[in-house]
């Protein structure tokens, strides 16, 4: 377990759960079917970095032209406030400590190849630094309705993703209800709600800025992994 400081709040997450395919426009751009129930997968703690820390572009991807494809995915995330299992949608808000921004960085061509041959969605999602989070955790009372927030991401100042959380297919109470049927959620656990359309590749040297209304913005430079200095 790893303690991280997001703004003024320290959290100690045991897991990061991400939703896939939760905005219609992103489903269309990736040619995926519309899910009947939430699609979720895990990211591991080695992915987490906080605001202003660099996203490291893995050399193993950069050096292979077929794999040189890393995409940004901006997402509204929430942090769990207490241990819970089998939560009902109507009680879901009791278990939310607050909201933040999460970037679900994804090695896209690797993910596609792995899916094609029925392999898990794991390695493409879990390189070190592939989970920027921050800049702070905003409590539910300050957010009001989490399903009416503009969400945006730009690369080098040019807007790539621009949507609103009202377009989420599965809403936050349903997500907690669904996930907690499977796994116990612990205090500090992070759940990312999925990304809207507009995903695009990034490269070393790019600067990514992501913002969500009422939460703020995070900024990350992309740098190429330097294996020699490790």
């Amino acid at each position, binding site marked *: 377990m790893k303690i991280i400081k997001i703004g003024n709040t320290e959290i100690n997450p045991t897991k990061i759960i991400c939703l896939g395919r939760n905005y219609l426009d992103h489903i269309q751009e990736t040619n995926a079917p519309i899910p009947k129930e939430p699609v979720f997968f895990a990211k591991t*703690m080695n992915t987490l970095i906080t605001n202003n820390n660099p996203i490291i572009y893995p050399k193993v991807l950069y050096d292979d032209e077929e794999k040189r494809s890393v995409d940004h995915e901006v997402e509204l995330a929430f942090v769990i406030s207490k241990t819970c299992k089998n939560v009902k949608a109507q009680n879901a808000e009791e278990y939310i400590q607050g909201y933040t921004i999460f970037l679900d960085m994804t090695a896209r061509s690797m993910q596609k190849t792995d899916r094609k041959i029925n392999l898990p969605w794991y390695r493409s999602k879990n390189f070190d630094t592939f989970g920027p989070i921050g800049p702070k955790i905003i409590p539910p009372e300050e957010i009001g309705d989490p399903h009416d927030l503009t969400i945006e991401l730009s690369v080098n100042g040019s807007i790539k993703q621009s949507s609103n959380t009202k377009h989420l297919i599965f809403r936050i109470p349903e997500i907690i209800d669904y996930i907690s049927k499977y796994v116990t959620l612990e205090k500090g656990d992070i759940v990312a709600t999925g990304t809207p359309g507009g995903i695009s590749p990034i490269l070393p040297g790019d600067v990514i800025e992501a913002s969500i209304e009422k939460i703020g913005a995070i900024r990350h430079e992309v740098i190429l992994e330097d294996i020699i200095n*490790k």
Partner: protein
Amino acid sequence: MKLGDLEINPSKIICVGTNYMDHIEETKLEIPKEPVLFPKTLNCLITENQPIIYPKMLYENPKMNRVDYEVELAFIISKTCKNVKVQNAYENILGYTVFNDITARKMQIKDIFSKLPWFRSKSFDTFGPIGPRIVGVDEIKDPHDLNLELRVNGEVKQKSNTKYLLFKIPELIEYITRFFTLVPGDIVATGTPSGIGPIKPGDLIDATIEKIGTLSNKVILEGENENN
């Protein structure tokens, strides 16, 4: 969490799929060209003698009602490492233990078929029994020559030897750390041999690996006797 006399504080569990030739043949999967990795989340972990909770949502749904055992040799990471070379791999291992990669098989097959992630079928609470202790690298000179066995209610179901591992431990560490940083306490499970099969509430599962010991867990239905 405490395994025998050692306390570990894992940040992740990485499992290797399809890593024994006999298991690959029985599941009709292709022989992988590189290790197949997936995570389990920490809510899976239980130790010796704690119950495996059989999820009610699987038990009550005939289309989903199959949960399998998978005995595996696991190793625990001793220090933070990235881009490890095969020849230095063992420097980063604290020791070895027994892991049971409990899997909701019908759900996994359905999800694989739909090109969905291997997550929910692998990460129900208590789906990762581990233990009974960690045996140091100095005590197990060759981790690729250990008998492993799994019994359900005393009947042998899986029986193999770690010499049949397709990707050996040093290769696994090199491969995994090309992608991810491993930190002290992290658990890597090396895959299961053939003989996988279902468990049901009431069963007693014993997983044994030579030189390590036996990990015993009873299966109970969710909502029943959870305090035992």
